[in-house]
């Protein structure tokens, strides 16, 4: 959807978002490159992603580089790192077959056996993004999907964004 300043564009945008279906593999870098090309004036760039595919494909540094580049061009960049509650805690019990959402990879494991190692890995993953983006003055928010979106939005509006506006 191309950018537009007419009055009904916001409604079209929301409608398009509403109609999105999760499908295919993630290619966050491509999306960011596109934004970088089309956003000529100072803009607000909001990224909502689990960032997981970027992690898998080794694109973490590229995505981070592009986000920091957008910020360097005076865009306001906000990243909502969206993760499921199960992904944050791995609360399962008993022998479980974990199946990838985007390909056919599977893992048979005892969650209790791998929980500690998984949570450590997850912490490293989140901290890597958080510190990398914050160093580039990109606003980072970790979002637990179990929270209501309104609560997340209020936090965003009452917090860092408002402070930034004052600056």
């Amino acid at each position, binding site marked *: 959807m191309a950018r537009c300043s007419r009055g009904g564009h916001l409604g079209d945008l929301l409608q398009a978002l509403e109609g999105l279906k999760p499908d295919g593999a993630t290619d966050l870098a491509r999306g960011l490159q596109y934004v970088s090309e089309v956003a000529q004036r100072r803009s607000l760039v909001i990224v909502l992603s689990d960032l997981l595919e970027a992690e898998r494909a080794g694109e973490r540094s590229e995505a981070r580089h592009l986000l920091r580049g957008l910020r360097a061009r005076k865009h306001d960049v906000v990243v909502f790192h969206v993760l499921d509650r199960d992904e944050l805690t791995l609360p399962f019990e008993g022998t479980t077959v974990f199946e*990838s959402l985007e390909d056919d990879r599977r*893992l048979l494991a005892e969650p209790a*056996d791998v929980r500690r190692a*998984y949570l450590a890995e997850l912490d490293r993953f989140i901290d890597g993004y958080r510190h990398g983006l914050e160093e580039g003055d990109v606003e980072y928010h970790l979002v637990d999907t179990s929270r209501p979106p309104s609560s997340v939005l209020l936090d965003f509006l009452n917090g860092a964004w408002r402070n930034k506006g004052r600056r």
Partner: protein
Amino acid sequence: MSFLAPGFAVFALLFGVPIAIHLYGRSRAKLKKFAAIDLLLRSERKVARRTKLRQLLLLTLRALAIAAVPLILAKPFFEAESDLPAVVSGSQSAVIVLDDSMSMSLVGSDGQKLLDAAKARAKRIVDALGADADAALVLGSRGGGAPVAELTADRARLEHAIADVKPTHRATDLTGALKRASQILQVASRAERRVYLISDLAAHGFDRDPAWAAGAGPELVPVDVAAGAPLANRAITDLKVEPASHLGPRGVRITVDVANFSDAPAKEVPVTLRVDGKPVAKGLLDLEPHQKGQKRFFHSFSRGEDAAEVGVHELEASLAPDALPDDDKRFQRVEVRRDLRVLIVDGDPRTVRREDEAFYLETALRPGDRADSQLEVTTITPDELKRRRLADFDVVYLCNLKAPFDSASLRDYVEHGGGLFLTVGENVDTDAWNESLGDLLPQPLQAIRSVGATAGARQDGETRMSGDGEHLGRIDKGHSALAPLQGAKHDDAFMAARFSRYVLLKPTAHEDDREVLLRFASGAPALVDKPIGAGRVMLFASTIDRDWNDLPIQPIFLPLVQQATRYLARAPMHEPEAPVSIGQRHDIALADGDLRIEVTLPSGKTRVFERDRVAGRKLLGFAETDEPGVYRVAAAGADRESPKARPQASFVVNTDAAESDVTRLSPERLALMVSGGAGGKTARAPRRRVELWHAMGAALLLLLLGEALLLRRK
């Protein structure tokens, strides 16, 4: 391996249950779509190896734990070859002779006392005896007795009796024990009669003659608890104490005999001497295999704070403890007498010393005027006698005194334990003496008799004898005053003395009251002894100097007057009392008025003997001499009085030195003994059951503990 309850063992197959659950659980795993699969895969790779190992361990532990429970209930065991005699399982009447002598306290190479091994073996023999068998138990130490003196089929009683056997310090008497076993078996109802002899089979335990004639006794089955291994031991076998005159009256020479009863030489064996519990000397001794050696020590006992008291000292010689520590110590007891106080009343003092009445006597009592003569001699004139307290002296010599005497003082002195020695001479008026002294005289005086030769003219200041004079005729060697002077050497010395003059004594009706120690050749008494009250009086029927005889210049004079003085003072010279052996009865001398005696054993235990065992008796028999060491005696003269230590009555008990020799009985002698009995038919060799369920129970606990730990480390 076998099972007592094999039915339970089938359930051991349940060990497959955890494996099946594990496999089934994998196939029933829940499917979960998961976006962060990359993170999960990376995490799993890190812990995969450890997790798999832990899971494998857990699975194994659970499988084993489940299998262990039915296996334990099935009571598994296996049978091993038994070291018990093959004949033990047959029908028989048996007597178990268990050696509990001191040598069985030796610690073997396995760190176990031989007696403990013997008890275990005896218990196993009782367990293995056939159902149709009865048995008795006899101990192999001297005086050990028979805890089960008759044949019984009661296994529990036999096992209790075996368990109650304690190590002793007693000597071995296996021949005596075998004889007793043979007597018990004479009434046996079973055809086969056996004696199981469980011992270290040391040669010292057997007499030369066998316990029973060849073919006439029961079958002897020796069980060697040392399994033929050579035994090693070092011991103190003797401790002798002798006077060491060069160290003075309180000096002693102590000789310690040490033996090495082993096949290896012993270098620099430390020997320690303790006096009254304090170490005073130490020496080293090298001993070749099966050799004895001696270590000598010299020691001088201190006079002590109260020199008037008799000093009793305890000696202990010891080695560093070895495999048999009981014989590494030996004890002895030494009495150091106080100095005796002697008063000489000189009835014919002279300015020329040699002519003085008391010169020879004084010289003999204090030879060389040495301070170590143990006699404290005071010489006075008759005039000074009134000013002296006789009770301050042990012995009073009245030499050639003129009558009258203060007979009341003299009687009081003697009746209270004093010793009075009377000698005659020119100053003696026989009638005046008889009148003044009365029955204090052992025998009344009759007249002075001159025999052939008389005292010659004085030449060169010495009295010389002329003619043969009269010799002494008879000597009462049985009298305790003269007992130490026995022997031909002393007899000749007595006979060498010649007497020119002596006092004849009147016959007396009270022959029983007095004893004649010496007689002249004519049969007339020369030295007479009479007890009066608690004391004694001796009368010598001639002079104590050379006026009437030449006895003072004979070699016998010095020991005679020394011995008479000690006899009158009731302090005769004597050898140290021989130590008592373990188990030997000792007679404790009692004093008049003793009402209670306490004997403290070396272990500190006390035995009390009350009035009914003590009052009015001279001796108290004490038989509980089962511990080596010093036994201390205390006595009380009244019922409520606390007993006072009586060191003179203390005594020591030592182990039998023969018991220390652990040399084994030769195989030839042993074979002869075994062949002496009537052999029985040998049953199938018994087998020993080794039960496993106790160990498996412990293993199960460990498995469960291991599983809990593994789960906790998740």
